[in-house]
Protein backbone atom coordinates (compact mmCIF):
# COMPACT_ATOMS: atom_id res chain seq x y z
CA UNK A 1 0.00 0.00 0.00
CA UNK A 2 1.19 3.48 -0.79
CA UNK A 3 0.06 7.01 -0.06
CA UNK A 4 1.05 9.78 -2.43
CA UNK A 5 0.61 13.42 -1.48
CA UNK A 6 -0.84 15.95 -3.86
CA UNK A 7 2.55 16.99 -5.14
CA UNK A 8 3.42 13.45 -6.21
CA UNK A 9 5.69 12.58 -3.31
CA UNK A 10 5.51 9.22 -1.61
CA UNK A 11 4.55 9.76 2.00
CA UNK A 12 3.73 6.25 3.17
CA UNK A 13 4.42 2.77 2.03
CA UNK A 14 3.99 -0.55 3.67
CA UNK A 15 3.75 -4.22 2.75
CA UNK A 16 1.18 -6.46 4.32
CA UNK A 17 2.37 -9.71 2.81
CA UNK A 18 5.69 -11.12 3.87
CA UNK A 19 7.89 -12.32 1.05
CA UNK A 20 7.05 -9.66 -1.51
CA UNK A 21 9.99 -8.56 -3.54
CA UNK A 22 11.36 -5.30 -2.25
CA UNK A 23 12.51 -2.39 -4.34
CA UNK A 24 15.04 0.17 -3.28
CA UNK A 25 13.70 3.28 -1.58
CA UNK A 26 14.62 5.29 -4.59
CA UNK A 27 12.59 3.04 -6.86
CA UNK A 28 9.55 3.50 -4.67
CA UNK A 29 9.89 7.24 -4.94
CA UNK A 30 10.25 7.00 -8.71
CA UNK A 31 7.22 4.74 -8.87
CA UNK A 32 5.16 7.25 -6.90
CA UNK A 33 6.30 10.15 -9.02
CA UNK A 34 5.68 8.29 -12.24
CA UNK A 35 2.26 7.18 -11.18
CA UNK A 36 1.38 10.71 -10.19
CA UNK A 37 2.29 11.91 -13.66
CA UNK A 38 0.46 9.12 -15.45
CA UNK A 39 -2.60 9.75 -13.32
CA UNK A 40 -2.59 13.42 -14.24
CA UNK A 41 -2.28 12.56 -17.92
CA UNK A 42 -5.13 10.06 -17.87
CA UNK A 43 -7.21 12.77 -16.33
CA UNK A 44 -6.65 15.16 -19.15
CA UNK A 45 -7.18 12.65 -21.96
CA UNK A 46 -10.68 11.75 -20.84
CA UNK A 47 -12.68 12.05 -24.06
CA UNK A 48 -15.25 14.82 -24.19
CA UNK A 49 -17.71 13.40 -26.68
CA UNK A 50 -21.27 14.67 -26.75
CA UNK A 51 -23.93 12.21 -25.68
CA UNK A 52 -21.82 9.10 -26.06
CA UNK A 53 -20.09 7.11 -23.36
CA UNK A 54 -16.37 7.81 -23.52
CA UNK A 55 -14.55 5.01 -25.26
CA UNK A 56 -12.04 3.12 -23.20
CA UNK A 57 -8.46 3.81 -23.99
CA UNK A 58 -5.50 1.46 -24.48
CA UNK A 59 -5.12 -2.07 -23.31
CA UNK A 60 -3.90 -1.75 -19.74
CA UNK A 61 -5.88 0.98 -18.10
CA UNK A 62 -9.46 0.18 -18.65
CA UNK A 63 -12.63 0.86 -16.71
CA UNK A 64 -11.71 3.66 -14.38
CA UNK A 65 -10.59 5.93 -17.12
CA UNK A 66 -13.93 7.57 -17.57
CA UNK A 67 -15.90 10.03 -15.56
CA UNK A 68 -19.40 8.57 -15.51
CA UNK A 69 -21.18 11.72 -14.44
CA UNK A 70 -19.91 13.70 -17.37
CA UNK A 71 -20.48 11.22 -20.16
CA UNK A 72 -23.56 12.97 -21.49
CA UNK A 73 -21.94 16.36 -21.97
CA UNK A 74 -19.55 17.64 -24.50
CA UNK A 75 -17.48 19.28 -21.76
CA UNK A 76 -17.11 17.99 -18.26
CA UNK A 77 -19.11 19.84 -15.70
CA UNK A 78 -16.56 22.04 -13.92
CA UNK A 79 -17.89 20.89 -10.58
CA UNK A 80 -17.33 17.24 -11.44
CA UNK A 81 -13.84 16.94 -12.82
CA UNK A 82 -12.56 13.88 -14.58
CA UNK A 83 -11.19 11.23 -12.31
CA UNK A 84 -8.11 9.80 -13.95
CA UNK A 85 -6.86 6.27 -13.67
CA UNK A 86 -8.56 4.15 -11.05
CA UNK A 87 -7.60 0.55 -11.78
CA UNK A 88 -4.70 -1.10 -13.46
CA UNK A 89 -4.83 -4.83 -13.89
CA UNK A 90 -2.26 -7.38 -14.82
CA UNK A 91 -2.39 -11.16 -14.66
CA UNK A 92 -0.77 -11.23 -11.27
CA UNK A 93 -1.97 -8.18 -9.44
CA UNK A 94 -4.37 -5.33 -9.48
CA UNK A 95 -3.50 -1.74 -8.66
CA UNK A 96 -6.32 0.34 -7.27
CA UNK A 97 -5.99 4.08 -6.93
CA UNK A 98 -8.28 6.14 -4.78
CA UNK A 99 -7.90 9.89 -4.94
CA UNK A 100 -9.52 11.97 -2.25
CA UNK A 101 -11.07 15.34 -3.01
CA UNK A 102 -8.07 16.96 -1.41
CA UNK A 103 -5.69 15.39 -3.92
CA UNK A 104 -4.07 12.70 -1.80
CA UNK A 105 -3.87 9.36 -3.57
CA UNK A 106 -4.06 5.94 -1.96
CA UNK A 107 -2.63 3.07 -3.96
CA UNK A 108 -3.37 -0.51 -3.14
CA UNK A 109 -1.68 -3.46 -4.82
CA UNK A 110 -3.81 -6.54 -4.40
CA UNK A 111 -4.36 -9.97 -5.81
CA UNK A 112 -6.70 -9.61 -8.80
CA UNK A 113 -9.17 -11.86 -7.02
CA UNK A 114 -9.46 -9.74 -3.89
CA UNK A 115 -12.97 -8.43 -3.55
CA UNK A 116 -14.37 -5.31 -1.91
CA UNK A 117 -11.28 -3.18 -2.46
CA UNK A 118 -13.54 -0.13 -2.10
CA UNK A 119 -14.42 -1.07 1.45
CA UNK A 120 -10.77 -1.46 2.30
CA UNK A 121 -10.00 1.90 0.71
CA UNK A 122 -12.69 3.69 2.66
CA UNK A 123 -11.48 2.19 5.89
CA UNK A 124 -7.89 3.13 5.15
CA UNK A 125 -9.01 6.67 4.41
CA UNK A 126 -10.92 6.82 7.68
CA UNK A 127 -7.94 5.56 9.64
CA UNK A 128 -5.73 8.03 7.82
CA UNK A 129 -8.08 10.89 8.71
CA UNK A 130 -8.11 9.79 12.34
CA UNK A 131 -4.57 8.80 13.14
CA UNK A 132 -2.58 10.85 10.69
CA UNK A 133 -4.47 14.07 10.05
CA UNK A 134 -5.67 14.46 13.61
CA UNK A 135 -2.24 13.91 15.04
CA UNK A 136 -1.26 17.49 15.86
CA UNK A 137 2.42 16.73 15.39
CA UNK A 138 2.03 15.35 11.91
CA UNK A 139 3.14 17.95 9.41
CA UNK A 140 0.93 18.14 6.36
CA UNK A 141 2.36 16.74 3.13
CA UNK A 142 5.28 15.16 4.96
CA UNK A 143 6.06 11.43 5.19
CA UNK A 144 3.73 9.63 7.57
CA UNK A 145 5.44 8.29 10.62
CA UNK A 146 2.57 7.61 12.95
CA UNK A 147 2.79 4.47 14.96
CA UNK A 148 -0.88 4.51 15.87
CA UNK A 149 -1.82 4.53 12.21
CA UNK A 150 0.40 1.51 11.52
CA UNK A 151 -1.02 -0.30 14.48
CA UNK A 152 -4.67 0.31 13.75
CA UNK A 153 -4.27 -0.43 10.08
CA UNK A 154 -2.52 -3.69 10.84
CA UNK A 155 -5.07 -4.71 13.41
CA UNK A 156 -7.99 -3.94 11.17
CA UNK A 157 -6.57 -5.84 8.21
CA UNK A 158 -5.72 -8.83 10.38
CA UNK A 159 -9.28 -8.83 11.64
CA UNK A 160 -10.53 -9.17 8.09
CA UNK A 161 -8.56 -12.21 7.06
Amino acid at each position, binding site marked *: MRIINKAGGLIYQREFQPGLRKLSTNDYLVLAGTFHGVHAITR*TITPKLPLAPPSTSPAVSSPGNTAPATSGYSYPNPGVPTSGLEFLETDKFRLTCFQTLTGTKFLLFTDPLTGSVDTIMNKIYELYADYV*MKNPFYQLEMPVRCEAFDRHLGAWLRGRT
Partner: protein
Amino acid sequence: MSATKASRIGEETRIDKVNAELVTLTYGTIVAQLCQDYDSDYQEVNKQLEKMGYNIGMRLIEDFLAKSGVGRCANFRETADMIAKVGFKIFLNVAPTVTNWTSDNNQFSLIFDENPLADFVELPDDGRAQDELWFSNILCGVLRGSLEMVQMQIEAHFVSDVLRGDDTTEMRVSLIRYIEDEMPPEED
Protein backbone atom coordinates in the same frame (compact mmCIF):
# COMPACT_ATOMS: atom_id res chain seq x y z
CA MET B 1 -27.63 17.08 -3.76
CA SER B 2 -30.79 18.36 -2.15
CA ALA B 3 -30.79 20.18 1.15
CA THR B 4 -32.85 17.47 2.84
CA LYS B 5 -30.43 14.78 1.81
CA ALA B 6 -27.62 16.88 3.22
CA SER B 7 -29.34 17.20 6.58
CA ARG B 8 -29.89 13.47 6.70
CA ILE B 9 -26.21 12.76 6.16
CA GLY B 10 -25.39 15.28 8.87
CA GLU B 11 -27.74 13.55 11.27
CA GLU B 12 -26.42 10.08 10.56
CA THR B 13 -22.74 10.83 10.59
CA ARG B 14 -22.80 12.73 13.83
CA ILE B 15 -20.74 11.12 16.53
CA ASP B 16 -20.50 12.13 20.13
CA LYS B 17 -17.58 11.40 22.26
CA VAL B 18 -16.33 14.33 24.23
CA ASN B 19 -18.31 16.39 26.67
CA ALA B 20 -19.39 19.56 24.89
CA GLU B 21 -18.88 21.81 27.87
CA LEU B 22 -15.31 20.68 28.11
CA VAL B 23 -14.80 21.86 24.53
CA THR B 24 -16.47 25.17 25.32
CA LEU B 25 -14.30 25.60 28.35
CA THR B 26 -11.14 24.68 26.49
CA TYR B 27 -11.88 27.07 23.67
CA GLY B 28 -12.77 29.83 26.11
CA THR B 29 -9.50 29.32 27.91
CA ILE B 30 -7.56 29.58 24.67
CA VAL B 31 -9.24 32.84 23.72
CA ALA B 32 -8.73 34.28 27.18
CA GLN B 33 -5.09 33.28 27.14
CA LEU B 34 -4.60 34.85 23.73
CA CYS B 35 -6.18 38.07 24.94
CA GLN B 36 -3.71 38.06 27.79
CA ASP B 37 -0.72 37.17 25.63
CA TYR B 38 -1.47 39.92 23.16
CA ASP B 39 -2.28 42.50 25.83
CA SER B 40 -5.88 42.76 24.70
CA ASP B 41 -4.91 43.57 21.14
CA TYR B 42 -8.14 42.08 19.86
CA GLN B 43 -7.32 42.51 16.17
CA GLU B 44 -4.32 40.30 16.71
CA VAL B 45 -6.36 37.80 18.73
CA ASN B 46 -8.87 37.56 15.88
CA LYS B 47 -6.04 36.94 13.50
CA GLN B 48 -4.49 34.22 15.65
CA LEU B 49 -7.83 32.48 16.11
CA GLU B 50 -8.38 32.52 12.39
CA LYS B 51 -4.95 31.03 11.82
CA MET B 52 -5.56 28.27 14.35
CA GLY B 53 -8.84 27.49 12.68
CA TYR B 54 -7.15 27.39 9.30
CA ASN B 55 -4.74 24.74 10.52
CA ILE B 56 -7.57 22.76 12.03
CA GLY B 57 -9.62 23.00 8.85
CA MET B 58 -6.88 21.60 6.68
CA ARG B 59 -6.88 18.44 8.78
CA LEU B 60 -10.52 18.25 9.62
CA ILE B 61 -11.56 18.14 5.99
CA GLU B 62 -10.11 14.65 5.58
CA ASP B 63 -12.12 13.44 8.52
CA PHE B 64 -15.21 15.07 7.10
CA LEU B 65 -14.75 13.44 3.70
CA ALA B 66 -13.84 10.03 5.08
CA LYS B 67 -16.74 9.85 7.52
CA SER B 68 -19.52 11.49 5.55
CA GLY B 69 -18.58 9.89 2.24
CA VAL B 70 -19.98 12.80 0.25
CA GLY B 71 -18.73 13.59 -3.22
CA ARG B 72 -17.73 16.82 -4.80
CA CYS B 73 -20.26 19.65 -4.80
CA ALA B 74 -21.47 20.79 -8.19
CA ASN B 75 -21.69 24.46 -7.26
CA PHE B 76 -21.15 26.88 -4.42
CA ARG B 77 -24.78 26.73 -3.30
CA GLU B 78 -24.41 23.02 -2.72
CA THR B 79 -21.18 23.66 -0.86
CA ALA B 80 -22.99 26.06 1.42
CA ASP B 81 -25.65 23.50 2.25
CA MET B 82 -22.97 20.93 2.83
CA ILE B 83 -21.13 23.21 5.25
CA ALA B 84 -24.23 24.17 7.18
CA LYS B 85 -26.14 20.91 7.28
CA VAL B 86 -23.38 18.31 7.28
CA GLY B 87 -20.19 20.00 8.45
CA PHE B 88 -21.50 22.04 11.35
CA LYS B 89 -23.90 19.26 12.22
CA ILE B 90 -21.17 16.64 12.50
CA PHE B 91 -18.66 18.69 14.37
CA LEU B 92 -20.69 21.11 16.47
CA ASN B 93 -24.18 19.63 16.26
CA VAL B 94 -25.68 22.90 15.13
CA ALA B 95 -27.19 23.64 11.75
CA PRO B 96 -26.81 27.31 10.86
CA THR B 97 -29.18 28.77 8.31
CA VAL B 98 -27.82 29.60 4.90
CA THR B 99 -29.20 32.87 3.65
CA ASN B 100 -28.58 36.28 2.06
CA TRP B 101 -27.14 35.03 -1.20
CA THR B 102 -25.77 37.60 -3.56
CA SER B 103 -27.17 37.40 -7.06
CA ASP B 104 -23.97 35.91 -8.49
CA ASN B 105 -24.17 33.04 -5.97
CA ASN B 106 -20.71 33.76 -4.64
CA GLN B 107 -21.52 35.07 -1.19
CA PHE B 108 -23.79 33.86 1.54
CA SER B 109 -24.38 34.25 5.25
CA LEU B 110 -24.56 31.64 7.93
CA ILE B 111 -26.90 32.56 10.76
CA PHE B 112 -26.20 30.70 13.97
CA ASP B 113 -29.16 30.19 16.27
CA GLU B 114 -26.88 28.69 18.82
CA ASN B 115 -23.15 28.57 19.14
CA PRO B 116 -21.69 25.95 21.44
CA LEU B 117 -18.35 27.73 21.54
CA ALA B 118 -19.90 30.78 23.11
CA ASP B 119 -22.04 29.23 25.82
CA PHE B 120 -21.40 30.87 29.19
CA VAL B 121 -19.32 33.63 27.60
CA GLU B 122 -19.46 37.31 28.43
CA LEU B 123 -16.98 39.51 26.69
CA PRO B 124 -14.75 41.61 28.96
CA ASP B 125 -16.18 45.10 29.51
CA ASP B 126 -13.05 47.08 28.86
CA GLY B 127 -14.95 49.09 26.28
CA ARG B 128 -13.11 47.56 23.34
CA ALA B 129 -13.73 43.82 23.37
CA GLN B 130 -17.38 44.41 22.56
CA ASP B 131 -16.38 46.22 19.38
CA GLU B 132 -13.24 44.42 18.34
CA LEU B 133 -13.14 40.80 19.44
CA TRP B 134 -14.86 38.14 17.34
CA PHE B 135 -14.98 35.42 19.92
CA SER B 136 -15.72 32.54 17.57
CA ASN B 137 -13.35 33.68 14.85
CA ILE B 138 -11.74 30.26 14.80
CA LEU B 139 -14.72 29.03 12.78
CA CYS B 140 -13.87 31.39 9.93
CA GLY B 141 -10.43 29.87 9.79
CA VAL B 142 -11.77 26.34 9.83
CA LEU B 143 -13.93 27.07 6.81
CA ARG B 144 -11.09 28.74 4.97
CA GLY B 145 -8.68 25.87 5.67
CA SER B 146 -11.03 23.06 4.82
CA LEU B 147 -12.37 24.61 1.63
CA GLU B 148 -8.89 25.42 0.48
CA MET B 149 -8.06 21.72 0.61
CA VAL B 150 -10.92 21.01 -1.76
CA GLN B 151 -9.82 23.66 -4.22
CA MET B 152 -11.90 26.62 -3.14
CA GLN B 153 -10.43 29.86 -1.98
CA ILE B 154 -12.84 31.68 0.25
CA GLU B 155 -12.94 34.51 2.73
CA ALA B 156 -15.05 34.34 5.87
CA HIS B 157 -15.70 36.83 8.62
CA PHE B 158 -18.28 37.51 11.27
CA VAL B 159 -20.54 40.49 10.78
CA SER B 160 -22.50 40.22 13.99
CA ASP B 161 -22.41 38.24 17.20
CA VAL B 162 -24.95 37.93 19.98
CA LEU B 163 -22.06 38.23 22.41
CA ARG B 164 -21.67 41.83 21.28
CA GLY B 165 -25.34 42.50 21.86
CA ASP B 166 -26.39 41.96 18.24
CA ASP B 167 -29.65 40.18 17.49
CA THR B 168 -28.03 37.35 15.58
CA THR B 169 -24.69 35.70 15.04
CA GLU B 170 -23.88 35.96 11.38
CA MET B 171 -20.88 34.86 9.37
CA ARG B 172 -20.34 36.07 5.84
CA VAL B 173 -18.64 33.67 3.45
CA SER B 174 -17.42 34.72 0.01
CA LEU B 175 -16.00 32.56 -2.72
CA ILE B 176 -12.92 34.13 -4.22
CA ARG B 177 -12.05 31.51 -6.81
CA TYR B 178 -11.74 27.84 -7.54
CA ILE B 179 -8.12 26.79 -7.31
CA GLU B 180 -6.83 24.88 -10.31
CA ASP B 181 -4.07 22.61 -9.16
CA GLU B 182 -3.92 20.70 -12.40
CA MET B 183 -0.80 20.48 -14.45
CA PRO B 184 0.07 23.67 -16.25
CA PRO B 185 -1.47 23.77 -19.72
CA GLU B 186 0.63 21.94 -22.24
CA GLU B 187 2.74 23.96 -24.55
CA ASP B 188 2.19 22.76 -28.04
